[in-house]
């Protein structure tokens, strides 16, 4: 079989995945405003299971409504959602694929807050507003921290109850865990701030609580940003180094993590995650959805909207990309982390070429790779590799239009150059809605009381 390394099973402590390819966390606003799942989500995840990935890491799944990143993404904050997640798990399992729920909390990084979060600042490690969009924050009290830790444990328990194959803590990319971990963001003066040990306390307490809730034999992996690169807005501090992250990974392993998932950057999106281009022109018709989310939205929008201002944002964003490749942008950091931990390491960041992935696996740099955009572009990427293609015929161009369209439009590949025409592109994007379940007559529960 060509690219044999990719197709070797990956054995975790509590989970075996049939190959080395993970669908990284990505989604659209498929679900209901209350966080309940829809048929569309099942459709979405099934695309990738059909395509042959070994496991799907769900898009970020908030454990609390106050931790949503974008509304209309499925949540796991209620027990009555367990059957819904169970149904999704059954479908994915039926396609010979594993399903790992990514437990998350937005912290201050709340792009589209949703109705539940109207009229309240978001909780974070800090009360300093977020630097790029100007999201307003409120430093969490210890009670709120405890409440959140418990919510993560409850979320993991619900995932296990739903029969899913594991959970991942989204402690990368600037979400709540990052906000505690990063020396560029965390300005607390209690036991959750200051030295690295204190900043890691929240994450480690969550791992401990999850282990207490679900036991030792349920897969739990931790996604970490290898390096924060927190100074996207130039006057911010740089944040955590690779050395800091290695230490965190070791502590996480010791606390009970079964794998480390390596990413980059202390905000999302970040110039290095997802790597690739950024269309400021496209942002002029999508970022408007976020203008009211923070207090710097209008300023940013002007920077996108007026071409004579674009060089400002272009400089801010693209200066950080210098010297970085796109495919395997985090590979070297992952390699070092793997050398320092005993559990398997998965790496994300622009993977699309089978031979490149095989080499990384062969060298033992990583144990698996996770892919989002290239799989959105080619749901059957793994099958193409299996058929002997090193790269797909119409590869992902890393244009990131999928990313910056997500605020207003269904998730999908918006690079029209990959399609014969515009209609084909829209048809492809809309394909996620094709298979719908039966519609039922609701009971009186729909009435207002």
């Amino acid at each position, binding site marked *: 079989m060509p690219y044999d390394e990719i197709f070797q099973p990956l054995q975790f402590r509590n989970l075996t995945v049939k190959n080395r390819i993970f669908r990284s966390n990505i989604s659209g606003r498929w679900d209901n405003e209350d966080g309940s799942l829809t048929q569309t989500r099942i459709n979405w995840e099934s695309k990738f299971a059909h395509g042959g990935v070994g496991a799907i890491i769900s898009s970020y799944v908030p454990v609390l409504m106050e931790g949503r990143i974008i509304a209309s993404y499925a949540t796991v904050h209620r027990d009555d959602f367990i059957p819904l997640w169970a149904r999704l798990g059954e479908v994915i399992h039926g396609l010979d694929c594993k399903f790992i729920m990514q437990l998350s909390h937005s912290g201050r990084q709340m792009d589209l807050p949703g109705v539940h979060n*109207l*009229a*309240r*600042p978001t909780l974070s490690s800090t009360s300093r507003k977020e630097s790029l969009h100007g999201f*307003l924050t409120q430093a969490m009290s210890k009670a709120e921290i405890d409440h959140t830790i418990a919510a993560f444990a409850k979320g993991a328990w619900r995932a296990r109850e739903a029969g899913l194959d594991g959970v991942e803590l989204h402690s990368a990319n600037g979400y709540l865990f990052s906000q505690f971990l990063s020396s560029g963001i965390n300005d607390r003066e209690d036991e959750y701030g200051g030295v690295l040990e204190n900043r890691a306390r929240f994450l480690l307490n969550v791992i401990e609580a999850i282990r207490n809730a679900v036991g030792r034999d349920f897969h739990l992996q931790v996604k970490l940003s290898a390096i924060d690169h927190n100074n996207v807005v130039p006057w911010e501090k740089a944040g955590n180094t690779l050395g800091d992250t290695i230490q965190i990974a070791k502590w996480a392993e010791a606390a009970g993590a079964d794998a480390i998932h390596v990413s980059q950057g202390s905000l999302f999106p970040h110039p290095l995650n997802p790597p690739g281009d950024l269309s400021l022109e496209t942002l002029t018709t999508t970022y408007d959805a976020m203008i*009211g*989310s*923070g*207090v710097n939205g209008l300023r940013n929008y002007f920077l996108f909207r007026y071409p004579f201002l674009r060089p400002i944002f272009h400089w801010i964003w693209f200066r950080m990309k210098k010297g970085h490749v796109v495919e395997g942008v985090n590979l070297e950091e992952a390699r070092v982390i793997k050398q320092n931990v005993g559990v398997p390491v998965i790496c994300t960041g622009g993977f699309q070429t089978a031979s490149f992935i095989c080499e990384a696996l062969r060298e033992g740099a990583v144990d698996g790779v996770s892919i989002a955009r290239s799989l959105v572009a080619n749901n059957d990427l793994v099958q193409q590799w299996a058929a002997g293609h090193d790269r797909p015929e119409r590869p992902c161009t890393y244009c990131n239009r999928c990313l910056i369209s997500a605020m207003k439009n269904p998730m999908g590949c918006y690079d029209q150059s990959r399609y014969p025409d515009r209609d084909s592109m829209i048809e492809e994007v809309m394909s996620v809605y094709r298979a719908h379940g039966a519609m039922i007559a609701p009971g009186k529960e729909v009435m207002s009381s």
Partner: protein
Amino acid sequence: MSDINKPFSAVQIYLSQRMWRLDAALILLVFLVLIGLAALVIVIAALVEFGGKGTPTYADNPAHFMYGSIGAETESGLPYAVWKALPSLYPADFKGRSDYSAFGFLYEKGPNGKQQDLPIGISRRTVNGIEVVWFNCATCHVGTWREATGASPHIVPGMPSNNLDLYRFIRFILDAGADEKLTPDILLPAMEKTGTRLNPLEQLVWRFYVIPRVREGLIQRRSRLLPLLAAQPPWGPGRVDTFNPYKLLLEFGPGARIPDSELVGVADFPAIFDQRPREGMQLHWDGNNNSLAERNLSAALGAGVTPTTVDHASIERDAAWLLDLKPPPSPYRPDGAAAARGEAIFMKSCAACHGWQGPTGYVFQGAGIGKVDPVADVGTDPNRLNSYTKAFRDWQVANLFKGTPYRFSHFIKTGGYANLPLDGLWLRAPYLHNGSVPTLADLLTPPAQRPKAFARGSDVIDRAKGGFQAPSCAPGAPLADGTFCFDTAQRGNSNAGHTWGTNLPADQKADLLAYLMTF
């Protein structure tokens, strides 16, 4: 009332607070812009109001000479409005008149038959939007004569200003500058009463800038000049100390005093007819300069111009006109035969130094004409000679109009007095450089017998003696007709010297006098 616009979400609350800060900044900005605009309007108004400059011009040369500016107003002048208000503030000094005739300033009648607004010798110039008046050449070089008391005066440009009591005028102005009546609270209403209309902006500018600046200038001049004036005998009409005030105002610093040896430089105003033939002669009483142009500029400095304010074109226009200005013919009608005999005596004894009156006019010839005779030979009062020193000469040459084509270079220190041509002699009484001898007849009298004290300031001609009527008087006592009792015993006023002709027999003296009265 619905709270539909009340901020609800955290972002809305934050933005509305930021908006308040923005609004405050905007209000501040608008306020600053408004203040800026107001300031701009005020500045533009001020520029329009106080940016004006210029001076009236006169087509007619005599009018230019009498009323045209030579540039003295800028540094030395008084605002016209103050000039107009002073008579009402100091009625005693002005003898109750509303004009400046009390000081001997001369007024012509305008085309409408009314007296001119400004006297002869006072010109106007707009400086920074303010009309300012001060002296020109005619201040000291226009006089009058009359046939008899009660007759109307003839105004003669170019003759000495025999009426003007410059000493009294200067002391009055300097004293007024230090006087409370020139403070804005008193002066502004007086200006209003004498026809000045100020708008509110001008009121402010006058109250806080113009009047304080005028007073400051007068006080400074007073502090420099008053010690000199107080130490000198009053000059009397028709006289001036040319160089000492000029030293105090231009050369010396604050607190300086004129050394006693040069303290009294008072002399008569000279006539300035017929300048063309004088080019190259030793000019000024002591003959310290032989350049008409340089002498003219020096005299202009005396009138109050400075090297930066001087109006060269105006002065040169006056100078060009004066080149050939003839004195009016003598009104005396002496016996023709006597005059002919007198001419013979004059040609023998006097013409070499003074030139002579020929049948068609004055002849500016003679071996000694325009040359300096040592003071020991002339024997006249040495004070005027001594007031001009080598040190002052050196300072003038080193500093005045330095770096310009007008730089002074012709001044010299002499040891006597110059032999002057005697054209227009009948208008130049009293005689000698210091005006110490009232008439020609007195000048032909031995010094001991010349009048010891006589009245100066009359313009009525004396047909018997040649000159202006100058009755004897008692020094110190005021004269009823307002003339000035000139005391030859005072320093600088000695009537000694120039004894030529004093020893002639009486008939020859009479013949000589008859000839001199034809000049």
